[in-house]
């Protein structure tokens, strides 16, 4: 039995490592992906392209504008002179914000009257727009405070106000760098698609070239074949995980606080589910194209319902229930937990257990389906 599994393992390694195209898919493509997606996976909002429409053009208006442009958030890209331009800039997407100060702003401030400033936002991406509005709000409050202090001191009164200071401190991702949150997810998504694709081709390729028929009349048992196929691809995927993890740490300075051993263990268990799914797809496909299509049909919901980009807690209850069978959901908690929080087995077993169950179901299903396909 072990001799037969060994035969398959040796064969698979030889075939994969001999094919130069396959070698580059396995080695180069994860490197390119982690670097490319690593740069893309950034939701920090700073250096917001801003258009400025200063109709007032007084000392006061310029002072306010300085407050905006000195912050690292707003970068003045255009100075405009008409309302038509204001619309055009936003329509075109040249800027995310148009800051408009109406005539009379400086006069009103000096007279101690209410004065208005208009912030026109591109609200297409509601989250970004809300964050920008928040930044603008705090700049305005600071400005107002300055004005107040100046007015009061002009009257020769010294003002002492009780100050309530909110001290924020973020745990795990101290500088609130969004990339630190997304990169472990990017690693998970690369491993998912790579392991799925590799195994999805594994059985259907042999069906296409006709060697599967020879194997089915040999004493090779379905379970031996499945394990012989799972193991090499598992080892390859594990090596890929190691490679892109090291790259993410060195290149993007992603903190790694947990145990590498635990990460590899969690990855092994996760791979059990994705390789199982890949084999299931492979067993049920008659051509490699069909297998490839199915992989992408499987991958999209796996990714989108995993909490990779959209938090599961925000999903409607029914969809949240659906995510229970999504292996990537658990793996994301594992990678994020190990990278950023440095948590250990005491917490992660709650993720590892469901992964084991899903993996077991997937693999047994592919063995059963394989047997049924033959009959």
């Amino acid at each position, binding site marked *: 039995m072990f001799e037969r599994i060994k035969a398959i393992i040796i064969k698979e390694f030889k075939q994969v490592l*001999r094919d130069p195209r396959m070698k580059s898919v396995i080695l180069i493509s994860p490197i390119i992906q982690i670097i490319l997606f690593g740069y893309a996976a950034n939701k920090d909002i700073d250096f917001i392209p801003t258009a400025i429409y200063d109709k007032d053009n007084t000392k006061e208006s310029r002072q306010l504008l300085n407050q905006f442009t000195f912050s690292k958030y707003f970068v003045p890209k255009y100075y405009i002179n008409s309302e038509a331009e204001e619309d055009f800039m936003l329509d075109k997407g040249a800027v995310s914000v148009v800051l408009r100060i109406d005539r009379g702003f400086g006069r009103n401030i000096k007279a101690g009257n209410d004065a208005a400033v208009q912030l026109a936002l591109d609200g297409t991406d509601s989250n970004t727009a809300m964050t920008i509005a928040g930044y603008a709000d705090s700049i305005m409050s600071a400005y107002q405070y300055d004005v107040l202090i100046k007015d009061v001191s002009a009257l020769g009164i010294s003002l002492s106000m009780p100050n309530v200071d909110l001290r924020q401190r973020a745990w795990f991702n101290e500088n609130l760098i969004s990339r630190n949150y997304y990169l472990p997810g990017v690693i998970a998504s690369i491993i998912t698609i790579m392991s799925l694709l590799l195994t999805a081709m594994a059985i259907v390729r042999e069906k296409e070239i006709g*060697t599967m028929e*020879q194997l089915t*009349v040999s*004493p090779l048992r379905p379970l031996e074949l499945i394990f012989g196929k799972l193991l090499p691809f598992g080892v390859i995927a594990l090596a890929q995980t190691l490679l892109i993890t090291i790259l993410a740490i060195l290149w993007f300075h992603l903190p790694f606080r947990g145990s590498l051993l635990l990460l590899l263990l969690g990855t092994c268990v996760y791979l059990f589910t994705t390789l199982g799914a890949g084999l299931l797809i492979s067993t049920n496909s008659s051509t490699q194209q069909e297998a490839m299509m199915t992989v992408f049909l499987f991958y999209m919901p796996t990714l989108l319902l995993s909490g990779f980009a959209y938090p599961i807690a925000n999903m409607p209850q029914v969809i949240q229930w659906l995510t229970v069978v999504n292996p990537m959901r658990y793996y994301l908690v594992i990678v994020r937990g190990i990278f950023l929080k440095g948590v250990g087995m005491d917490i992660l077993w709650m993720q590892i257990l469901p992964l084991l169950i899903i993996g077991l179901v997937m693999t047994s299903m592919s063995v059963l389906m394989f047997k049924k396909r033959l009959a």
Partner: protein
Amino acid sequence: MTMNPSMENNQVAVAVNDLEKKFGTFTAVNHINFEVKQGEIFGFLGPNGAGKSTTIRMLCGIYTPTSGSGTVGGFDIVKEQFKIKENIGYMSQKFSLYDDLTVEENIDFYSRIYNIPKNERKKRKDETIELAGIEDFRKSLTSTLSGGWKQRLALGCAIIHKPKIIFLDEPTSGVDPITRANFWDIINKMAAAGRTIFVTTHYMDEAENCNRLVMIYHGTMIAMGTPEEMKTKVMKSDILEIIMPHAENWLDKISQLSSIKETALFGINIHAVTDNAQKAIAELNGLFQSQSLSDYSVNKIKASLEDVFVSLIENYDAEHKEK
């Protein structure tokens, strides 16, 4: 073809009893019965889609029969599929080798799959390479081998565990005549060594090489016997070969003659099947003379397997049309 000495012990290698396989409502194999003796070259003859491969697959433990029973090497084809797989060799026209592995790697792979003891492996490898005649290509990728070499290497890999019973599913389709002849030499040698060969084919010249034949059509056995029996006992009608210019223009007129059962073009000549050769020759002479044709000849010839096969199929079709 002489009988192999080992056949005299009359041991049964393969036996099927009322075997049937249905895919949905389609009957691929329709209640067939036969026995193959040890050391026999047993031919399974039929057109594409007749049920040849389905039968082989049931015997090799790939398909489970819908009904009926059978044994291969004494093992039950339903209950002991894995026992059967350990004891048979199987090769199909697809040449199941890995193109991206070298010759030696392919052999090593099948050595492990068939659990050849480690100390035996080198010897078996050398034997396989010798059988395929590819000593100079041990380390070459299999994809670089020509069709004939690949085919013999595939056979070598399929029998690396020295099985007593070997199933060959159209092993020679798509290879050149010299390679085919060469391949049949190997088959004959294996049979002489006491191995049972079960081979499917639709080449009539190959069928002549078999000790016994089964003809199968639409999943039904339509004849069984030695090639000689097929041509004499099974085929009760006579065959007349008519040689004449523009034979194709005469096909209709000849088949309208009352003594002629059927006609077919064989190359540029006509083969006419008749139950009464004398009467048919007289009728043909009459027909040709009335058309003032002298440039022709009519001879009674021995039926070829192809004649037998065509005639049996036409009988079958005629019978089933009536129903």
